[in-house]
């Protein structure tokens, strides 16, 4: 028997996917499918857009309207799709490098405009597909093929970057905390305005091997021990010392771009 969720929302002839054993991306992809199912969206009214990278393979497997675009430009294409057809639920899947380096400009401006897109960032802290180069989210001191002696850059916090640029919904969870991740994706889909969920993933093949992080399970355990829920951190600050904070960083209502655009058209028709 096949999994009904997979039969409903995935292209069965394209599976199994090409991601490495233990790659967290499959966990995020199934959380997105479950979130879409829970939101009760019509499959034909969903459009999934991606750029280039490991994560950007996802729309190839997902049975919706899908668009696989150029490196970093997923949000630019998605903005076009949304403006042309505002009733579509447009979901952008992008890796950490795709979203914050090559497409960093598109990210801050989509957030600034507060256009009703849902962005899911698959953050594995490295460029996996091209061979393990360090990315803007690689921790200081960690290694990549282009940082063999340790990375001297400071990493981006993509959730805070989006929030700072004006996103009206920004949340972070990990592939270990998968229930929470799915909840945030559901909230991001329901949210009107630019929403971003940073899904912290694991890359056992490149990031794990380069930095001697052990197996996929070891890396998942690290996520379990290193991330603290924002609500717990607020109540018991001693538990959050030296930890990463996950939770809803921003959730607010502001005028949405496609609605403002429609208002201009209506005004000029008179």
């Amino acid at each position, binding site marked *: 028997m096949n999994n009904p969720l997979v039969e409903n929302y995935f292209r069965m002839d394209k599976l*199994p996917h090409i991601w490495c054993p233990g790659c967290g*991306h499959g966990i995020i992809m199934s959380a997105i499918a479950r979130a879409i199912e829970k939101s009760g969206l019509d499959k034909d009214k969903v459009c999934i857009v991606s750029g280039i990278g490991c994560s950007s393979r996802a729309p190839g497997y997902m049975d919706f309207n899908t668009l696989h675009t150029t490196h970093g430009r997923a949000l630019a294409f998605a903005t076009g799709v949304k403006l042309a057809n505002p009733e579509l639920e447009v979901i952008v899947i992008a890796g950490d490098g795709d979203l914050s380096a090559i497409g960093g400009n598109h990210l801050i401006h989509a957030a600034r405009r507060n256009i009703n897109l849902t962005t899911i960032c698959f953050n594995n802290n490295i460029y996996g597909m091209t061979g393990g180069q360090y990315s803007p989210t690689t921790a200081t001191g960690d290694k990549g093929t282009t940082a063999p002696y340790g990375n001297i850059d400071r990493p981006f916090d993509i959730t805070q970057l989006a929030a700072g640029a004006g996103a009206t919904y920004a949340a972070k969870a990990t592939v270990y905390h998968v229930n929470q991740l799915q909840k945030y994706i559901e909230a991001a889909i329901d949210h009107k305005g630019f929403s971003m969920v940073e899904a912290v993933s694991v890359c056992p093949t490149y990031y794990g091997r380069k930095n001697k992080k052990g197996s996929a399970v070891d890396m998942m355990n690290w996520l379990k021990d290193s991330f603290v829920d924002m609500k717990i951190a607020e109540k018991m600050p001693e538990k959050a010392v030296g930890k990463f904070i996950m939770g809803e960083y921003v959730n607010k209502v502001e005028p949405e771009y496609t609605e403002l655009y429609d208002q201009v058209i209506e005004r000029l028709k008179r």
Partner: protein
Amino acid sequence: MAVSKDDLMVHIKEEWCKGCGICIAYCPKKVLGFNEHGKVSMLDRDNCIKCGMCEMRCPDFAIFLGGKENV
């Protein structure tokens, strides 16, 4: 309508399993293990509580809770 847990069981699609061991590590009842091919296998079906945590964290859609009648 909620489906009763009695009507559910864990299904394994061995050809999609890549043997990462995530489901085995996080099974709260430790009823899963590796088979001789390095793929996941149900070792103790009687003690499975059908929580679905294996399905939630499987990156490869290789394990899931599904209806019994379609085995």
